[in-house]
């Protein structure tokens, strides 16, 4: 295992310490391992928190700050955080206007957030939850765990965070988050596996001429293994199911997000974005906003994911609104 770490079970704590050391102006750390916006709680402002396993950096801690998240709860690598964290986060950011939990759709995340919400409500804090489930690689079904929450989470956190920042109430912020969820779709692929520090070896073996299509963000194998293909073919394999699913059609204005899995350099992401732009043009879909970079990762996995969000005027305005976090910053 080749990583810039000291001990597998120290990675999360040391990375958090580094984050706080680097971004002390934006965030602080409270027990038990919760990244909280420096100026939380803000009276009268709806609190927006999220969380999940570590290994997806900069998500979620890198999104804590003005106009985005009020707190983030990092679990062990790829393991959803425990209710104690979400409870502490909820209390720390509650400014009297209630708190929204943005939850990625994984059994563990959903159950741990549920437990935390029950405990917070028992303490008299108004809590709502929206579950993000945007991964079209997984069948949407009532009989299964349903779709995974992936890239759409980043966009939801930015847009919803801006709404809370401008003073929208809990019902409005919650409805907006659901609207983002209803209009966003994603799919990802992997060129290589990643290694969970505590496991010490790659989660899956893969040949030099193979790739995994339809992976999530936990280093798990994807829906299918295919022969390695070129960037254009890979982009088609991801974007076509996305566009067909919602579906996105001619005249739609969208936000296109090309995300790196952690081990893929920017030069390759721009090659992918070039194809995404071409395909959207051909479908009459207008890319009104875009995001290219590694924002929701799987440790050092090489690969990418594509996320497309159908925008409306409010979403576009809130996307453009000022944000100042470790990973996303503009207008501030």
């Amino acid at each position: 295992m080749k990583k810039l770490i000291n001990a597998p079970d120290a990675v999360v704590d040391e990375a958090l310490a580094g984050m706080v050391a680097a971004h002390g102006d934006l965030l602080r750390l409270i027990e038990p391992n919760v990244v909280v916006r420096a100026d939380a709680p803000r009276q009268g402002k709806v609190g927006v928190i999220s969380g999940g396993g570590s290994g997806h950096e900069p998500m979620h801690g890198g999104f804590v700050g003005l106009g985005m998240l009020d707190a983030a709860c990092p679990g062990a690598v790829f393991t959803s955080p425990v209710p104690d964290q979400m409870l502490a986060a909820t209390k720390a950011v509650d400014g009297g206007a209630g708190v929204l939990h943005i939850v990625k759709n994984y059994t563990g995340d959903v159950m741990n957030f549920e437990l935390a919400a029950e405990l917070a409500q028992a303490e008299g804090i108004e809590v709502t939850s929206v579950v993000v489930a945007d991964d079209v690689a997984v069948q949407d079904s009532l009989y299964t765990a349903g779709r995974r929450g992936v890239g759409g989470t980043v966009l939801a956190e930015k847009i919803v965070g801006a709404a809370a920042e401008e003073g929208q109430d809990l019902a409005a912020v919650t409805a907006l988050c659901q609207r983002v969820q209803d209009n966003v779709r994603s799919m990802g692929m992997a060129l290589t596996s990643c290694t969970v520090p505590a496991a010490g070896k790659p989660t899956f073996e893969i040949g030099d001429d193979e790739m995994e299509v339809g992976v999530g963000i936990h280093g798990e194998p994807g829906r299918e293994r295919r022969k390695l293909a070129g960037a254009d073919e890979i982009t088609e394999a991801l974007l076509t199911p996305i566009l067909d699913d919602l579906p996105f059609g001619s005249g739609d204005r969208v936000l296109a997000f090309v995300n790196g899995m952690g081990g893929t350099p920017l030069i390759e992401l721009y090659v992918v974005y070039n194809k995404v732009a071409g395909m959207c043009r051909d479908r009459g879909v207008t890319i009104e906003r875009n995001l290219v970079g590694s924002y929701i990762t799987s440790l050092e996995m090489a690969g990418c994911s594509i996320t497309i969000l159908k925008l409306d005027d409010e979403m576009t305005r809130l996307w453009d609104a000022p944000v100042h976090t470790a990973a996303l910053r503009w207008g501030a």
Partner: protein
Amino acid sequence: MSDFDGAAFTRFLGTFADRLHERRDELTQLDSAIGDADHGINMDRGFSAVRGKLPELDGADLGSAAKQVGMTLISTVGGASGPLYGTFFLRLATAFGERTEVTAPELGAALRAALDGVIQRGKATLDDKTMVDALSPAVDAFEAAAADGIGPALEAAVAAAIAGRDRITPLVARKGRASYLGERSANHQDPGATSTTILIESLRDAVAEG
């Protein structure tokens, strides 16, 4: 007459914690194939914490001991198994109440309550390919044999858990991370059903040692 008391319960917790630690990598390997390679790590983290609490449990009634375990798991495991195993022990606690010892049939009723809690929390049904597929037949078998005494009942429960764990290996998962793999989840042993089988085995051996 007492079939199961606080000493047996702590013996069980110690044994289960030891076996999870020994089989940590095996469980994580199973989770690598159809999950995210952390089940052994999660369970070991949780039950090491439980082991640390054992001294405190000494002399406590079964209910408060089980509650301590459940809270500890919920606060340290995370993932899907944290709330599920946590709920398992919290429901045992409610069933045990302030009792310091229970009979086999009473233990059976407590295990039934724990199983129901896991199903409520995780919404899994039989054949979804989860720990429920090992736990549910184990509880059925225990209750059916409870009249013969706790020893035979736990032997039957272990056999049923193993059978359930192996029965679902060929199935396609419908719950948990394995469900994301679709067809590819077939013909892999489920990590959670495996750790649950280890739980029942630990219970049997802890009681036998008594």
